């Protein structure tokens, strides 16, 4: 018994000592980066512990950074189109571009126009996908899903869920109204108000990632506007009828990037983390993360992913999809506030 106790105490002490020795990397992330399958290889290789905090929406992420002390955060996941906003506020550190080779990336996913500011690289894209239409092909006519009009036709009233994120859904409603995402300014918001309210009236619920997945998986709804492979891929084994498409009007391309936070005291470790995430192995793990799937920005991940995983990600269709997708709207502060007001109005009415 005494031996057992002594062993336990030694084990605990060893654990504490190990924890005390291990370095910490603090990462402000989206939920896909919280997957232990993704973090563990890096933690073991560098004897570090990656502490993650999830956030939702760039505005919230930037506010978190601004209310933190320099050094609190080392790396950050951020929408590639929002890198400029963060750089403008002095929140991101320059990246050594020569150490982050993007030559094996999908060219459309590099998004250097957004991640490189005045010739300095501040972030590197890591994963992309589409906000478009996800549906249960056993319950709807897949041909209908090729056109956004179907969602306003009345045929699917009460069977639609709206993904609860204003930027992609307003972008999709804009596409339906013939407005490009880049032109979605305050004046255009007036144009899409009515179709947005009609869409809300035709929908059953507005839900977050988990709520949307649950609604589609349980048959509560048959169509999700704003959904895509990131939502249906994790449910594929459970229900292969869950599918997604990019309709004639187009879809929205989301691309997340990874950056080093200005003021970090561990720039080398932060860079190593970015190198790991953008490596073929890290990319494959990130692409198939337990929270949501998405295309790896680095094509080389294709050598690590299985054929089945690539089929679920629609690997071979990417050239066509990338050609038809538009980037997220990039609103200025006032337009962003107007968009959120419109979204709140929709939720509340």
């Amino acid at each position, binding site marked *: 018994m005494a031996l057992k106790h002594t062993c336990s105490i030694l084990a605990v002490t060893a654990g504490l000592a190990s924890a005390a020795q291990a370095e910490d990397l603090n990462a402000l992330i989206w939920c896909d980066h919280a997957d232990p399958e993704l973090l563990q290889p890096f933690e073991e290789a560098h004897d570090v512990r990656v502490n993650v905090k999830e*956030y*939702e*929406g760039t*505005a*919230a992420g*930037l*506010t*978190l950074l601004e209310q933190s002390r320099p050094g609190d955060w080392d790396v950050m996941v951020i929408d590639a189109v929002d890198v400029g906003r963060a750089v403008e*506020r002095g929140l991101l550190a320059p990246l050594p571009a020569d150490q982050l080779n993007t030559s094996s990336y999908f060219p459309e996913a590099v998004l250097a126009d957004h991640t490189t500011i005045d010739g300095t690289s501040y972030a590197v894209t890591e994963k992309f996908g589409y906000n478009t239409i996800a549906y249960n092909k056993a319950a709807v006519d897949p041909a209908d899903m090729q056109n956004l009009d179907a969602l306003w036709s009345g045929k699917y009233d*009460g069977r639609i869920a709206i993904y*609860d994120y*204003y930027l992609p859904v307003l972008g999709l409603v804009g596409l339906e109204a013939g407005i490009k995402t880049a032109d979605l300014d305050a004046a255009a918001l007036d144009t899409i108000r009515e179709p947005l309210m009609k869409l809300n009236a035709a929908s*059953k*619920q*507005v*839900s977050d990632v988990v*709520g949307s997945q*649950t*609604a589609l998986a*349980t*048959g*509560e709804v048959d169509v999700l506007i704003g959904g895509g492979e990131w939502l249906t891929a994790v449910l594929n084994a459970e229900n292969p009828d869950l599918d997604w498409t990019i309709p004639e009007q187009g879809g929205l391309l989301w691309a997340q990037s990874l950056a080093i936070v200005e003021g970090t005291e561990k720039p080398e470790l932060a860079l190593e983390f970015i190198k790991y995430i953008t490596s073929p192995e890290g990319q494959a793990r990130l692409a198939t993360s337990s929270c949501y799937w998405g295309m790896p920005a680095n094509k080389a991940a294709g050598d690590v992913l299985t054929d089945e995983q690539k089929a679920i990600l629609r690997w071979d269709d990417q050239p066509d999809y990338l050609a038809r997708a538009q980037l997220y709207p990039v609103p200025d*502060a*006032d337009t962003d*506030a107007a968009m*959120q*007001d419109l979204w*709140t*109005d929709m*939720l*509340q*009415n």
Partner: protein
Amino acid sequence: MSIEKQEKRQGAALVAPALLWTLGFFAIPFAAMVMMSLAHLEGREIVQGHDLGNYLRIFTDPSLRRGIFVSLEITAVVTVISVLLAWPLAWIIATRVPARWRRMALLLAVLPFWTSYVVRSYSWALVLGEKGVVMNALVGLGLLAEPVQIMATRSATIIGFVHFFVMLLTLTIYSNLIQLSPNYARAAEDLGASRWQVIRLVILPLTLPGVMTGAFLTFVLCIGDYITPQILGGNNELTLPQLIMLQLGRRGDFPMASALSVVLMVIVTLAYAACARWLKMERV
């Protein structure tokens, strides 16, 4: 030192930890929240100030104002339904269940407390869905021709809340009932009161402290709850806590979130003031 002074010092020393606790973990954070509510967002910057713009907007912006009414309506309905269900349940456990089974009955009544709040809400989402147990049973029994929508409506939120708060109220009312001497009922019956009159005119008024304490707790917890309406309500209308989370999570608008939180605190304070005369914990 006089005995009186010594007693005063001892009293102050005894009260000090609670006072410091309240000061450090309530008064100071609350003051900080009030200060933040007087600031405002300019673009994406928080600008410190002393204006009431956020409060003005809460009462003039229809979406924000509606959040207050939605919260109050849901909370009122939940509180009333929970009391109506919990009182008979507590009374049956206290008076009709044999003493040796009471503990077991109470245990069964509060068993759902042992489940995580989030898990319980998601379970309700599955139960109340169009392909859930309830609709399958109703359609299977021929009581409904086709499923009706409960999930992602206010009804689902209310059901989720009532399930939780009936347990809480049962406990507060039961603890009140069990303290009542059976002689009250016997005396009333001796004087010719019927069973119903005994309950209505004797037992019910004597359990008011337990009912009001439970109802107040229900009110406070319900109006401040974010999880249940978020999971079960389908975001088809927003309560005050959901609006607060929208300001924090989406906009990074801490001043507006603080102002909404202060409004929530004021509502709770008013509710306390309204039922303070019954809130004497020693009587529960």
